[in-house]
């Protein structure tokens, strides 16, 4: 065999290997994506096409308007989304307002009780939210805020993970910068908002994505504290929808599911890198 022939064989082998590699990944992508594709497909089909067998992705008779119309009118789907925006927004703003100054104090000030407070933060990191459900439910009951937005927000205002993450970033800011800012007459609070937070921008973005995604998708806590339909965040709304459609009127149900999952998915497709970074940072907690 000539050298050229061997090189050709090798390229062919590499090509074959590459082809196999893509074939496997495409197959796996199809399997993983199937629920999404099927959700969209069913949301466009009329009942009779859903019931009689068939693997057609596209309906013979398009039923989009009917399904989505029914989904949007039978339950206040858009209100669920608005509730999600209100609750996640309130949680995020309060978290940053509370956590950034605390993180600055822990990173750059020296005061009595600092180590104790940091120990509290570390203990907080160890506690899963579900463990607090009973006492926080009792507390919300005592405060008379059950079945309000406040009940959805108050357990999450202080985020030990947020404090921990911001502290890590703030620690890397040179002390000279802070000293110079103080000489310029900035108050400690002004240093937090005008110096530290802008410098720790990547951490703020990552934390924001982590926070919004976790609370947008949370079902456990809303299930406990919310009864009124008009206060339901998206996951709870979808449960209410599902309970009512006890039969298998899948068209409108899939339309509702599509409406509920699409905001985060669209955001994800536009800012993939940030989402992946933010969420994998969340795993480090």
């Amino acid at each position: 065999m000539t050298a050229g022939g061997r090189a050709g064989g090798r390229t062919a082998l590499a090509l074959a290997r590459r082809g196999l590699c893509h074939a496997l990944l495409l197959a796996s992508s199809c399997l993983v994506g199937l629920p999404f594709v099927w959700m969209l497909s069913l949301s466009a089909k009329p009942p009779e096409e859903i019931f009689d067998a068939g693997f057609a992705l596209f309906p013979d008779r398009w039923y989009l308007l009917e399904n989505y119309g029914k989904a949007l009118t039978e339950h206040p789907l858009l209100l669920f989304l608005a509730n999600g925006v209100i609750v996640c927004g309130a949680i995020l703003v309060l978290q940053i307002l509370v956590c950034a100054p605390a993180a600055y104090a822990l990173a750059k000030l020296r005061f009595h009780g600092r180590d104790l407070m940091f120990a509290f933060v570390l203990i907080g990191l160890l506690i899963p939210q579900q463990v607090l459900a009973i006492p926080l439910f009792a507390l919300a009951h005592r405060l008379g805020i059950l079945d309000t937005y406040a009940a959805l927000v108050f357990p999450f205002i202080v985020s030990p993970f947020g404090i921990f993450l911001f502290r890590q970033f703030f620690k890397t800011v040179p002390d000279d910068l802070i000293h110079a800012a103080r000489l310029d007459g900035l108050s400690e609070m002004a240093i937090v908002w005008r110096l530290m937070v802008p410098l720790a921008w990547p951490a703020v973005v990552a934390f924001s994505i982590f926070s919004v995604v976790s609370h947008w998708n949370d079902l456990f806590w809303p299930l406990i504290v919310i009864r009124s339909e008009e206060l339901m965040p998206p996951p709870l709304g979808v449960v209410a929808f599902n309970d009512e459609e006890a039969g298998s009127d899948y068209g409108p149900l899939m339309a509702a599911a599509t409406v509920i999952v699409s905001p985060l998915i669209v955001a994800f497709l536009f800012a993939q890198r940030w989402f992946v970074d933010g969420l994998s940072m969340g795993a480090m907690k």
Partner: protein
Amino acid sequence: MTVPRPPRGTRELLSAGILAGPALLLLLATMLLPVLAVFVIAVTDWQFGAGHLSFVGLDNFVALFGDAVFRASITNTVLYVCLVVPATVGLGLALALLIESCGRLRAFYRAVHFLPYMATLAAMAVVWEALLHPTIGVVNRTLQGLGWPVANWLRDESTVLPTLAVIGIWQGLGFALVLFLAGLKAVPRDLYDAAEVDGADGTLDRLTVVTLPMLGPVTMFVVIVTALRAFEVFDTVRILTEGGPAHASEVLLHTLYVESFEYLRTGYGAAVTIVFLLIVMVLTLLQAKVMDRRVHYS
């Protein structure tokens, strides 16, 4: 080096108080004191709504371990974790290696596999219910088409837990994949060159000599993160099975929810909570240890 500070002593404590005070108060009021409260509630017979409660010692825990439903719940949760973790980690690693060696379309594959992790699980559970519908679901129709046996996946005691595990794997796979991709990126290139000099130049050699050993700490980390998430399985169980049929898919968090907030047996629910807390704390401490080691060796 610390910052030279003109304000000293009390003034400094004051500014720290203003900065960190709200966080400290909330930390105590919404996390640390409630955790202590759970331990107190667990030794009482308190029921939500009841005006009185009395100390019952460890009765709740004794009752717990004598309760067939709770024992089923523990067994099912452990079984679920044992199904989800190896599959998620194994598939995540395999896919990450494939994506690394394919070259093109890397971002596309990553995005597709990551999608389920982002999507609201409550909504996707409803979609899975449609997929798994015994007669009109696409899963059974495909199996029928292939001439394979079908099942009523979510209503049969023998299939319900594995089916929920498949959904769990589907959801967590992309996350494991992303962590592995990050781990692969961190493997120093010169290690491959060194391995090649030593004669390990085949794909398989490179994999076993360099890649897999270097991924050890990442793998440990992925195992623990996946296990933590699997222990917290709730949404799919709540929406698809409510623990049934015949408690075949009863899991820890679902038991906690039902006992505490449906039966309103608060003291008993608190005891379940403590069992859950202990398991999760052990896993989290393990995770902290692994992370610590990773920092030291890299």
